[in-house]
């Protein structure tokens, strides 16, 4: 197992190198660079820098060099933890990115927990009450959850929260709390702003998981050993929970693994709509202002997060199902 994990990690390296090259090319695609964009912005508001200044700045940051030189300069800093300089924020890229990645991971992780806690009981209930009205209702809700994209749900929630419930929605925490020292009230406020994006991100995947859990459990419940258990006079609760659910739950891990990329990807746009500090809002700004090292590092780190979570899912699968042996 250890050898397998090491091999997988080693295999990530070439992929990451190619991903870094592709990211770099993509962020270089728009015409112009940070300084020309900045100048265009300044010119729009009436001011103006002369061409000479722009040229000097470009020279200073090496933007006049050929692409591969710029790329190599960027990559050569990686081992030292130097991922470039954000021209817009005037600070190293790494701390900005890490902070956002941490929040994304937190929200994503929470939505995974939400998914499991909600989908599995609903799936079990639907399967044990097959074709009942509540089963149909839950299935329809699941379909609805599957069909509404994250950002629409986020918009709906903002609307519902702000207009109907009249509670503050969006943002990392309330404005008046942002500068206050940490206290219980601040923590509660923080949590109050944390769960809506997590739930919204998890909803679509919950629907998916619930459908599959229902199907799996129905398959298992039709097996002979379940009939045997029932024939022996075992309590129905025991038959379902101890015999059937345990077996039906295993395949869900691979389903969850497939949902992780979706959550990471959706977190950007949900973050933008709800203005929570996932990678989304900053990535969008960096892309628009052509703050290329920041945008590139975001792409790189999100790909890394995706690969790592895929690896973790594979390990979890092997851990849960002893029949799977990786060599």
């Amino acid at each position: 197992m250890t050898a397998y994990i090491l091999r997988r990690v080693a295999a990530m390296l070439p992929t990451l190198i190619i991903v870094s090259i592709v990211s770099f090319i993509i962020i270089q695609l728009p015409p112009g660079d940070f300084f020309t964009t900045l100048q265009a912005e300044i010119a729009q508001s009436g001011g103006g820098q002369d061409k000479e200044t722009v040229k000097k700045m470009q020279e200073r940051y090496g933007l006049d060099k050929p692409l591969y030189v710029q790329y190599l300069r960027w990559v050569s800093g990686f081992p030292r933890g130097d991922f470039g300089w954000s021209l817009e924020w005037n600070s190293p890229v790494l701390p900005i990115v890490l902070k956002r990645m941490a929040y994304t991971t937190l929200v994503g992780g929470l939505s995974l927990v939400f998914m499991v806690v909600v989908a599995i009981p609903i799936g079990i209930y639907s399967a044990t009450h097959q074709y009942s009205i509540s089963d149909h209702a839950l299935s329809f809700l699941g379909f609805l959850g599957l069909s509404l994209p994250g950002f629409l749900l986020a918009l709906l929630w903002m609307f519902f929260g702000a207009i109907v419930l009249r509670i503050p929605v969006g943002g990392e925490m309330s404005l008046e709390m942002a500068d206050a020292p940490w206290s219980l009230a601040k923590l509660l406020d923080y949590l109050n702003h944390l769960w809506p994006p997590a739930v919204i991100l998890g909803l679509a995947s919950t629907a998916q998981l619930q459908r599959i859990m229902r199907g799996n459990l129905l398959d298992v419940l039709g097996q002979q050993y379940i009939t045997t258990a029932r024939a022996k006079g075992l309590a129905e609760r025991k038959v379902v929970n101890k015999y059937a659910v345990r077996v039906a739950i295993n395949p869900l891990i691979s389903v969850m693994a497939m949902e992780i990329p979706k959550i990471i990807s959706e977190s950007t746009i949900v973050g933008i709509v709800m203005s929570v500090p996932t990678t989304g809002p900053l990535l969008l700004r960096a892309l628009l202002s052509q703050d290329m090292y920041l945008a590139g590092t975001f792409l790189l780190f999100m790909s890394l997060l995706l690969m790592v979570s895929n690896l973790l899912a594979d390990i979890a699968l092997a851990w849960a199902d002893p029949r799977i042996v990786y060599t």
Partner: protein
Amino acid sequence: MSDLATKSEELYKLYEGLADTSEDLEEAELEDLTTRKSLEAIYAASQWRLMWRKFIRNKVAIVGGVVILLYYLSALFAGLLAPYTLSTRFAKYIHMPPQRVHFFNDGKFQPFVYDVTLEIDENLRKIYEPDLTKKVPLQFFAHGEPYKLFGLIETDIHLFQAPGAIVSLLGTDRQGRDMFSRVLYGSQVSLTIGLLGVLLSLSFGTVLGVASGYYGGWVDDLIQRLIELVRSFPAIPLWMALSAAVPPHWPPLRTYFVVTLILSVIGWTWLARQLRGKVLALRNEDFVLAAKLAGASDARIIFRHLVPATFGHIIVVSTLAMPAMILAETALSFLGLGLRPPITSWGVLLKEVQNIQSIALYPWVFTPAAAIAIAILAFNFLGDGLRDASDPYTI
């Protein structure tokens, strides 16, 4: 033998839905004859026929299919159905709420709307009230603003018009433009971009997926690595980065096609994987061997035998891929990265409601979201039904 008979009987019941077997003995014999005939029809029926039979039994899928058909029809006839064009502005009626259409005028059928009066309250908010003294009957197939039907035929006939007044079923936006007309015109862009995007991903995905499954070896390895590489990027950030590179000054049509291309960059990988699996299972079948022995070239085997064999699967997969495409376009345009005005898509329309304030005060500008949600739901229902029907030999 009797086993076979009961099997046939079951099949017969399944496909014809005639479960009534409690007939008199004499009639049973007669029945038996017709049964055999229908059974023959079932056995002789082509796979497509069986699929169709199974499909039309799925009511939810039918509803989904009909809704989608209506969507595309209304997109096709958007100019006729919409009372106004994209650029029609009513400077007098900014952010006007939806009007109610009354169908009966003094007991006889004559749809009309009330004229609208505008008042400004003490908060300087605009209050629109129907003027109950002025009924404006709707005129059908009346002359209005000129437009081009299907982009070709110049005409000025609209399905309905309210001469001398405004008729706005979904209210107006911040520039006084009719939301109903805008949602209709928006569907043209949003629905076709989904279709084009899927077609594009389908052509990449089919060629690469089928080649990957058929040839195996290094071709397979290369294509699979490429797919893995593309998939190691999270989808939405990659789309965002790519569409940020589309210069804002490009002409609308070029932007439209480039955005479609960007959306297919990721879509093809999924289709390719699905088709590869299908072809891997099919390539050892006898009919492929027979074609090979008959001296057919690889290209002929692929396009003449393998691709048609996966056709049902392709249709299912592309129906299920449509919602993702439409949503991706909507999301990107919503962020201001995909399509931009003057192109009007559902995403572009939604971009206007990015702040809570406008949703709170003018909830009707949110209607494009409902149009999207219904379309997505319909596509999912249809896709699910098609998936079940694509395998007509299981119950």
